[in-house]
């Protein structure tokens, strides 16, 4: 009987296991993760896990019901792979157990980047796992102030949650602008204003030099020699891909595990997907990793199909969302080239759709509380369809009619 080993039991690993069964694979599936929990989705970790009133009700983002793995005959084990022999196709676990397999999918995800030069401290937290989030939740209960290092999506989501808990929040960001590479300048300023209205204080262009632990908090010193004390610190300065096992096993790595459009690594029979996978993107084929809910799900499913012999290329249209206060912000496409015109369809300050055009095609769109409208233009973005900017700006013209017209 054929055995497929999935290393990493996060969202990507769990979805891949499910997809293998859904596609009719009837061999053995071993799904091994180093967390004590069955696969779950991480978006809730910076939101409801922190804001829910009841401890027993603060997390329900499991990927599957608790009996799914047994009924689907998926051998989920909480044990991490320490050695992978790609020649003999064997894996050795931390527990000492060793298994043979026929094909392998690596979905080891990423880990929170640590702040260089900051010693381990019980007042310094990161947010990557459910365990991390539960620790932060506990700390929020008796803290009055927190400093967030990093004004990215995770840091801002955490800031919103901490404000909902009534805690003083300071966000420290090294750049002069929040999310400069992910958001258009104008919207970045609006997002900052939204946080400021909710009581968040920003230190932009701030450089942390030193942190020292005190009895019940930390003292941070910034360039310019200003110093401040906070009850605790949340470090949200991005993640690093978990590629060490793949590298040690001889797979090609470098900012993640290198895969081709079929999610296969440099060694036949070995695949990777999710946060840890570095794949050729778009028409240029430039290599990148995507750290998103959508990528963890979709790339894992494509990998599973390829592993079963169906040649499918992974060609995503990047889609991200973030929930902060009463805003659901969604982004479609990547802000990675010049935009020669911005068009906004604005219903209110809390509901809008912002579209970036290049050569009369929408290359990027951002929606605030307007996911339905964003969805209506998805195919226009995916297919780089030529659009009439005037029609796009006309509130009397329905976007989905424009879309239908363009493709009829």
């Amino acid at each position, binding site marked *: 009987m054929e055995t497929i080993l999935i290393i990493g039991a996060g969202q990507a690993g769990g*979805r891949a296991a499910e997809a293998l069964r859904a596609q009719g694979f009837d061999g053995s599936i071993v799904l091994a993760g180093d967390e004590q929990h069955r696969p779950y989705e991480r978006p809730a970790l910076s939101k409801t896990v922190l804001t829910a009133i009841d401890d027993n009700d603060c997390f329900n983002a499991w990927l599957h019901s608790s009996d799914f793995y047994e009924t689907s005959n998926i051998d989920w084990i909480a044990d991490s792979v320490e050695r992978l022999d790609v020649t003999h196709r064997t894996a050795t676990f931390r527990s000492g157990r060793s298994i043979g397999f026929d094909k392998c999918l690596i979905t080891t995800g990423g880990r929170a980047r640590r702040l260089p030069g900051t010693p381990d401290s019980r007042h310094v937290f990161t947010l990557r796992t459910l365990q991390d989030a539960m620790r932060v939740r506990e700390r929020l209960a008796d803290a009055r102030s927190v400093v967030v290092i990093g004004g990215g999506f995770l840091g801002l989501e955490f800031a919103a949650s901490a404000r909902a808990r009534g805690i003083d929040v300071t966000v420290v960001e090294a750049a002069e602008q929040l999310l400069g590479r992910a958001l258009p300048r104008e919207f970045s300023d609006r997002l900052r204003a939204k946080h400021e209205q909710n009581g968040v204080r920003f230190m932009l262009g701030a450089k942390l030099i030193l942190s020292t632990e005190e009895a019940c908090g930390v003292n941070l010193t910034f360039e310019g020699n200003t110093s401040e004390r906070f009850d605790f610190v949340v470090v949200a300065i991005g993640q690093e891909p978990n590629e060490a096992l793949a590298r040690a096993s001889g797979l090609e790595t470098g900012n993640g595990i290198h895969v081709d459009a079929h999610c296969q690594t440099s060694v036949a029979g070995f695949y990777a997907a999710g946060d840890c996978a570095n794949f050729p993107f778009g028409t240029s084929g430039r290599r990148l990793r995507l750290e998103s*809910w959508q990528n963890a799900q979709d790339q894992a499913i494509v990998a599973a199909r390829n592993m079963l012999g169906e040649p499918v290329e992974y060609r995503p249209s990047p*889609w991200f*969302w973030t*929930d902060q206060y009463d805003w*659901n912000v969604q982004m479609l496409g990547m802000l990675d080239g010049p935009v020669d015109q911005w068009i906004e369809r604005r219903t209110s300050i809390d509901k809008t759709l912002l579209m970036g055009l290049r050569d009369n095609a929408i290359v990027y769109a951002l929606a605030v509380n307007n*996911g*339905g409208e964003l*969805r209506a233009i998805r195919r226009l973005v995916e297919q780089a369809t030529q659009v009439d900017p005037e029609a796009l700006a006309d509130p009397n013209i*329905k976007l989905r009619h424009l879309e239908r017209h363009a493709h009829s």
Partner: protein
Amino acid sequence: MTLKFAANLDDLNADQPYAATIENEQIALYLVDGEVYATHNVCTHQFALLSDGFLEDGCIECPLHQGKFDVKTGAALCAPATAPIKTYKIQIEKGAVMVEL
């Protein structure tokens, strides 16, 4: 079980679901190929109104995270939606959409 007025048939269009609140129950009405369907209006994944979502080929996509439901059966069709959405029987009476509650 009673029939309650939800909307005039003329208020419905095939592009966009219609949101109706009947006795504190939030309901979304859909017009698909000339037929009317009704589901609960709140996504089973997180709080969002399906009536703000994207209706295509008889499926409603939630505006929040693109979970998808079959408006005829209520079946959850793609993640993050996993639990089905409640559906309601409807009747058309003299141009009015009546929902069975």
